[in-house]
């Protein structure tokens, strides 16, 4: 469930005017910006951008980019974009790092629905004039590349139909691959990147029934092997995305310095989806509410935005 609170009545024009007021003059009224944009869903934010453009012949996003700074600016920039466009930007940032962030690419390709991933690919082309898969292919190498390109290219069947014979045989295949540490086994990539999510869940459950543990137990997270790490992330994203996101959040806060990139990314991308459930998982696991942990670890306008997205009432 979404965590953001959205008012019943909104006027894009009024919002655009208020935002203009917040940006004009000497300082920027960040609180006003947060209190408006932090309480609007994707469709409403789009309307506001259109209204702002009409009224002031200026791109609201560019205006905000010039007025805001730091983590707050980065978070607001990501928040205000359309979800597909946002994912395209996140993917591009991940790819262009000197050491590409595989986890982000896996996160996007495995937790979005087939139609959402398609929209991301279209948005990526529109923005960067190249396909997502060609950029992933050009910036990664070896076995990890095969996995990543396959995952971003997938257009999985989105239905409920499962073939239990298949989940049986493919659970066996996965077991063999993991047992022999043959992680670059073509079959593993094939199964993970082509089967529907329901089919994969059935396969993972079958694996658990047959062997008593989940597949990821045999794929250590602290392995030095980048393929193993990637596979583990893929399995976890496909098997239980909410649990996966809780872990990303936990790790991002746990570190000596907070990993603002990861913190922002998860909160911004899940606030309209399932952040509520992720919060519940976090609370159960860590005995402290996520809001509290975030408040402790962040400050200023960045903190204010995150807390608003987490559902804090004004």
């Amino acid at each position, binding site marked *: 469930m979404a965590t953001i609170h959205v008012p019943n009545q909104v006027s894009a024009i009024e919002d655009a005017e208020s935002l203009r007021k917040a940006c004009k003059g000497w300082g920027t009224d960040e609180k006003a910006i947060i209190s408006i944009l932090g309480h609007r869903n994707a469709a409403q934010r789009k309307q506001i951008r259109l209204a702002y453009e009409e009224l002031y012949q200026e791109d609201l996003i560019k205006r905000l980019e010039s007025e805001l700074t730091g983590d707050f600016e980065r978070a607001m920039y990501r928040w205000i974009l359309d979800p597909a466009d946002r994912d395209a930007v996140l993917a591009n940032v991940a790819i262009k790092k000197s050491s590409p962030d595989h986890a982000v690419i896996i996160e996007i390709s495995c937790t979005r629905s087939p139609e959402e991933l398609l929209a991301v690919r279209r948005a990526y082309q529109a923005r960067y004039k190249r*396909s997502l898969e060609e950029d992933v292919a050009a910036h990664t190498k070896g076995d990890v590349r*095969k996995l990543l390109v396959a995952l971003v*290219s997938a*257009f999985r069947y989105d*239905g409920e*139909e499962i073939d239990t014979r298949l989940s049986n045989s493919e659970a066996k295949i996965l077991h063999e691959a993991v047992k022999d540490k043959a992680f670059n086994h073509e079959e593993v990539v*094939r199964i993970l990147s082509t*089967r529907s999510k329901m089919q994969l869940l059935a396969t993972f459950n079958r694996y658990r029934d047959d062997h008593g543990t989940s597949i990821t137990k045999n794929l250590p997270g602290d392995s030095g092997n980048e393929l193993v790490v990637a596979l583990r992330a893929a399995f976890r994203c496909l098997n239980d995305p909410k649990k996966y996101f809780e872990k990303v959040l936990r790790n991002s806060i746990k570190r000596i310095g907070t990993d603002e990139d990861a913190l922002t990314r998860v909160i911004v991308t899940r606030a309209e989806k399932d952040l509520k459930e992720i919060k519940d998982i976090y609370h159960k696991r860590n005995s402290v509410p996520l809001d509290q942990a975030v408040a402790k670890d962040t400050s200023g306008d960045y903190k204010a935005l995150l807390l608003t997205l987490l559902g804090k009432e004004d």
Partner: protein
Amino acid sequence: MALPDVLEALNKAFSGIGVDENSLISVVANSSHEHKKSLRKGFSKLFIEDENGFERSDQSAIKNLKFEFKRFRDAVILSLLHPWERDARLIEKAIKKGPKQYGVIVEIACSRSSNELLGARKAYHSLFDRSIEEDLASHVKGSERKLLVALVSAYRYEGPKVNEDVAKSEAEILSNAIKNAHKRKPIEDEDLIMILSTRSKPHLQALNEHYNKICQKSLTQELEGEGNLKDTVECLCTPETYFTRVLDSALSADADEESKRALTRVVVTQKELLVKDGSVPNKIEGILTGAYKDFILGSLAREENK
């Protein structure tokens, strides 16, 4: 009608691609009992006399006839289907038929626009409750699998922007892969598959030109004998050449059934491309017959009159 004329008319009606329905009506429908008896004796294409002097039909010849009668029906249906359903069904049949038909999958994946290919993938979900990739991945064995899955999964950028430096360096990568063909088959070269399955068509065309400059040969010439890989490059870079070749194959004297079926598929799906080639109607004229011929020529004419 005198018997030799009847035999000739019958022969003609069953020659070529398709059948001459009108001729068959006039020759067969009002044939007398005696006439038909003589027909059977004289028409060795379809009838043979067995040890007992019985003029029995040659079942395998009749079976082949079935294909010729079906052609018109198949062309009509293929023409009526939504392009996405059409492509999804063509791919599904090709997967079922096996390696000899993988060229059809390459053809569809490489000649359609990004959104048409996407549409086919969506249609496939609806029709078969599975994705194309998963069917390909579980039915196709060997090195073809990587290529086919990658081609079908592509959502290529369709703008004109090309980075010439990258195209040039990738031409060199391909050149090396092909030079080392004796050590490792090009279709198993990961970089080659990545390039062919992710880059945009304008990029690949630029790459092809650079390749030509480096190696004094075109990619398709170099890949002669590499089956699906050659088709991939040809379809992506020079589709007119590819489709002309498939068409000519279908019309040649020793074309087999699958090659002939390609004729319907190519005409129905590549009208715009074929109409540009003014020689196509003439090529078809002498070889196709009956309602099938009229339908095919009609399909091509409609485009011209648009």
